[in-house]
């Protein structure tokens, strides 16, 4: 059993037709940074709140460090929560916000003062301890919220889209900061986001969810390079998915008949047979000029994005995305007839 263990967690809100979270089983190790990633409404917040105790699971069990806490009330779980809107107490100043959890624990005044200072220094806000919440920027409020959750030395730190209210640049800085603080304290962390870049950048492991169920659990590399299914492939990074028919498999490589492209090869871990889907990332696709009778399709859109050029190539009814490094190859014009190809190791058969 892992440090934080969720077993067969189900949440069905009263009146809802389908459960918002179903059969959710996940083990999280001590000190691990795990992201819950998925589209809006897939049940990330619900799952996080069940861990926190703010939402009661319909069924299933939660264990922390071997002790069951499924029925433990919120205020006895000792988890640090950071909310999307920060939920800072507007009538208390920065230091009193951070001190709140310690006051609830009846920590002595002197020790509380020391720990509040430490926590504020950790998030680099030591100089603002006397400020009122209203007088803080979004990024500063975020840090106060983090300090307030960390100061109680929680067993688990739970973050619900903590960065979504910040502008893009600050978001990148803050996520690095959260990650480095997390490493420094070695605190077990569950981080909810619907931003794949964020999840890929900071997580030890990512849990991809859709419609209340886990689609895949894995390291960022595993999730990106070996998505378990079409949903994950589409959700993480950009993806071209081709319908294909497997004609022959040997040594982990499948020979395929790909609709619109003809005979191709792709990596096949599972030794699948019959109809399949092939995943190729746009930057792994190659495109070259070809005579009309020999071509797979026509260049439909050309978008220059600085370091690379993105082509949209029309193949039958579908549009294939190709990303090529600018300057590396001849630039293609709209309307050019082209052939598409890929290296065998860059294509993956999905089931």
């Amino acid at each position, binding site marked *: 059993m892992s440090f934080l263990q969720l077993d067969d967690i189900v949440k069905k809100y009263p009146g809802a037709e389908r459960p918002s979270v179903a059969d959710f089983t996940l083990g999280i190790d001590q000190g691990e940074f795990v992201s819950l990633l998925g589209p809006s409404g897939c049940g990330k917040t619900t799952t996080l709140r069940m861990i926190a105790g*703010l939402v009661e699971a319909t069924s299933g069990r939660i264990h922390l460090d071997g002790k069951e806490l499924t029925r433990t009330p919120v*205020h006895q779980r000792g988890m*640090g929560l950071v909310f999307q809107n920060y939920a800072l107490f507007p009538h208390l100043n920065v230091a009193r916000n951070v001190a*709140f959890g310690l006051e609830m624990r009846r920590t002595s005044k002197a020790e509380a003062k020391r720990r509040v200072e430490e926590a504020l220094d950790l998030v680099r806000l030591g100089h603002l301890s006397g400020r009122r919440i209203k007088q803080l920027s979004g990024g500063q409020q975020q840090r106060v919220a983090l300090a307030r*959750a960390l100061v109680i030395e929680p067993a688990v730190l739970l973050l619900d889209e903590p960065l979504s209210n910040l502008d893009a640049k600050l978001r990148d800085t803050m996520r690095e900061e959260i990650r480095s603080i997390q490493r420094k304290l070695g605190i077990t962390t569950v981080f909810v986001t619907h931003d794949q870049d964020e999840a890929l950048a900071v997580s030890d492991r990512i849990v991809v969810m859709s419609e209340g169920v886990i689609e895949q659990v894995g390291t960022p590399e595993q999730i990106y390079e070996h998505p378990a299914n079409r949903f994950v492939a589409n959700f993480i990074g950009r993806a071209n998915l081709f319908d294909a028919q497997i004609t022959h498999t040997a040594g982990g490589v499948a020979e395929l008949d790909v609709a619109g492209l003809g005979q191709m090869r792709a990596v096949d871990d599972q030794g699948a047979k019959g109809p399949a889907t092939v995943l190729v990332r746009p930057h792994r696709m190659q495109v070259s000029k070809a005579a009309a009778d020999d071509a797979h399709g026509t260049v439909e859109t050309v978008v220059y994005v600085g370091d690379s050029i993105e082509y949209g190539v029309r193949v039958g009814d579908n549009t294939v995305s190709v990303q090529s490094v600018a300057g590396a190859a001849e630039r293609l014009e709209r309307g050019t007839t082209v052939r598409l190809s890929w290296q065998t190791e860059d294509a993956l058969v999905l089931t």
Partner: protein
Amino acid sequence: MSAKTRSARLTVLGLTVPGLLGLAVSFVLPLAWLLRMSFNRGDSTGYIEETFTLDSYAQFVGDSYYWDMAWETTLLGLGVTVLTIVVSYPIALFLVRTESRFKGILVALAVAPLLTSSVVRTYGWLVLLGNQGVVNQALMGAGLVDQPLALINNRIGVYIALVEIMMPYMILCLLAGFGRFNQELEHAAQSLGANRWRTFWRIVWPLSMPGVLTGALLVFVLTISSFVTPRLVGGGKVFYLATEIYDQATATLNWPFAAAIAFILLALFAVVIVIYQRALRRIEAQ
């Protein structure tokens, strides 16, 4: 000053002048007239001597009967205010928290009593609280009391009726004052180790203070100036400043004395408003 801000100022002026004029004519002028009247000399024959004397004020200050009355009035104001907060607060909190689709309707229901005049509602209480009223019938039916409790023609009845009449005002103020509150704050407090009780006293209550204060001010002022309810439910047996003003003006016909009491009541308002301002500034400075 740029042209823009000057025209903005003119607009503000243009928009406020009609209201200010109305206020001057309907409020300030009568008040000035009343102030002048309080310095005349009157007697119980209704004769008013145009003069400038502090006799009426002296009569009030020199008579412990009126001091008691002022004290009872203040007590009524405070008592009704506190009781109204106590009974309205849970309702307002429920209305703020509920996720029911009928929330709008529930709020409307809570303040619906405002649609009927307080005179009508006062008669309602007379019926309910009388010796043959529902309350006494129920108590006697249940065998809790042998004789009807005296719930009207005394102070108890006045308190009960006023609290009910003031509730919608208090609920409205509380609802408006909960602006900074959201349930996520309670969740945050709980996650930090606060049980329900401490969450309430440390988070919910302080955040509702602006609404509580505004409601308290409104209810206090409405209570000590209310006349119909103390008069009818009190059955002419209990006396407050407002009822005394009426008696002096209509029964005793001593208008200067009535005017003087009116200004003493006004002074009480002023004290309360100063306290309110101080308190409000203190919460906002937090």
